[in-house]
């Protein structure tokens, strides 16, 4: 086999194992940055909301979340933060867990966890916004 004819940065073995380029190069990096910027802006709003509602009774919190000015930043932060959390924890798992089985199990769990927390939070906000 001549090395000169293979111009791809991938060995035939990697090709067989499907470990070659997935054409997603900077996707993880870029999404982590985009959600990071979104989190930064949205968290400032949400921290302000949470501090102003801290210790308030149920009726006050319920009334506050009826306003889209309150519920929208929370919903946006939940979505952005869950994507950010999933990408961040994925990096941690890939850095420290080297056995293939546990790694894949934890990566799946990571996805399930972030989607579950995100969906539950979203449902709670929607119920407060639209519920009676």
């Amino acid at each position: 086999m001549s090395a000169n004819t293979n111009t791809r940065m991938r060995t035939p073995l990697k090709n067989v194992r499907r470990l070659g380029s997935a054409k997603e190069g900077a996707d993880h990096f870029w999404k982590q940055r985009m959600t990071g910027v979104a989190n930064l802006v949205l968290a400032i709003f949400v921290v302000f909301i949470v501090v102003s509602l801290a210790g308030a009774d149920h009726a006050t919190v319920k009334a506050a979340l009826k306003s889209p000015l309150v519920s929208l930043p929370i919903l946006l932060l939940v979505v952005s933060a869950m994507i950010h959390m999933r990408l961040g924890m994925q990096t941690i798992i890939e850095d420290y867990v080297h056995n293939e089985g546990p790694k894949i199990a934890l990566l799946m769990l990571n996805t399930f966890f972030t989607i579950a927390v995100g969906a539950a939070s979203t449902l709670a906000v929607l119920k407060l916004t639209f519920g009676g």
Partner: protein
Amino acid sequence: MAEAKSARAGTRVERPLSPHLQVYRPLVNMVMSILHRITGAALYFGALLFAWWLIAAASGPDYFRFVNDLMGSLLGRLVLVGFSWALIHHAVGGIRHFIWDTGRGYDLKTVDLMSWGTIVLSVGLTAALWLVAVAVK
């Protein structure tokens, strides 16, 4: 070479290792680096607290009062102080990483300055947040 000969014989040998983490004096940028990961992981589970608060509010007055009292207790406040510091520290550390992403701030002086700035700002902002929160209640 001894290693090569043993390797050919199929036995595992102790190979010389490059100096590992514990031989280095901890530097502020190392500490900030791992703190960014630790606070990120803490926030991952801390998100459950925020979700719990939202779910409690959606569940009704009785359960919301129960969760509110729990979070307002001494232990609850202690956890929330930790949560808020982790959030602010990770946010300030994130800004530092955004600056690095632009290709700037890699000289040692700036790295040190930004690393110290991260911890000073995160502790200061957390203290300020809680002072304001307590003052307006």
